[in-house]
């Protein structure tokens, strides 16, 4: 399960509206608490896939190194990621699955229809390695 505050939930959905018709992306920071990922802050990231931003995203690893360093100073961990699907369902794609490598983390997807955030779903990347990984539906608890 993923737990986050209303303001964080609204902020990640709004990010997708701002970047429409391109995909947005960002990092969920917080802590792991008995199988629940608890978000304490968000870090917006740039989408480096300027060749195909309407249906692909990539966070530059250097940006991730910086986000991770700043999070460490606040005693937060990377617990997941979010991105948007402009005019596409809030379901993971084959690309999302193939390029997901952070086992045990949450992958949040918001569909943005005609510029307006619609459904937001979250998936936990389960499994023990690249061969058996799966994106599994998880509950989002907005508090």
């Amino acid at each position, binding site marked *: 399960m993923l737990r986050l505050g209303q303001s964080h939930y609204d902020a990640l959905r709004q990010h997708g509206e701002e970047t429409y018709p391109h995909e947005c992306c960002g990092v969920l920071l917080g802590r792991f608490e008995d199988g629940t990922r608890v978000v304490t802050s968000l870090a917006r990231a740039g989408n480096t896939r300027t060749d195909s931003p309407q249906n692909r995203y990539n966070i530059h690893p250097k940006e991730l190194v910086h986000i991770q360093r700043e999070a460490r100073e606040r005693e937060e961990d990377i617990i997941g990621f979010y991105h948007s699907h402009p005019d596409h369902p809030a379901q993971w794609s084959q*690309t999302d699955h193939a390029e997901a490598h952070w086992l045990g983390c949450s992958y949040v997807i918001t569909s943005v229809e005609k510029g307006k955030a619609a459904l937001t779903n979250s998936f936990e990347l389960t499994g023990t390695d690249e061969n058996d990984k799966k994106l599994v539906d998880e509950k989002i608890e907005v508090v």
Partner: protein
Amino acid sequence: MPKVHIPTPLRQYAGKQAAIEVSGSTVGEALSGLVSQHPDLRRHLYTEEGKLRAFVNVYLNDEDVRYLQKEATAVADGDNISIVPSIAGGSAIESCETCKWVN
């Protein structure tokens, strides 16, 4: 000694530590030292052929070691080595670099 920062998914294979000090004068030696201390990390970082997996980025401080001298890049005391699996995806369904992992 240089310090290796472990991403959250791999900490369970590294004694639940977020950062580990390792010996070594190059990035390759530091990573070898890391996997000899924590052998369960090996299959997550390296292919069966012993190459770093394509989606595993290794940064020395603020630089991608691919654009330095790769695993031969020199490291010094106080350096920070970060292991950063890539973050990518999208609604596109065309083939992608790491789609070979599917099936």
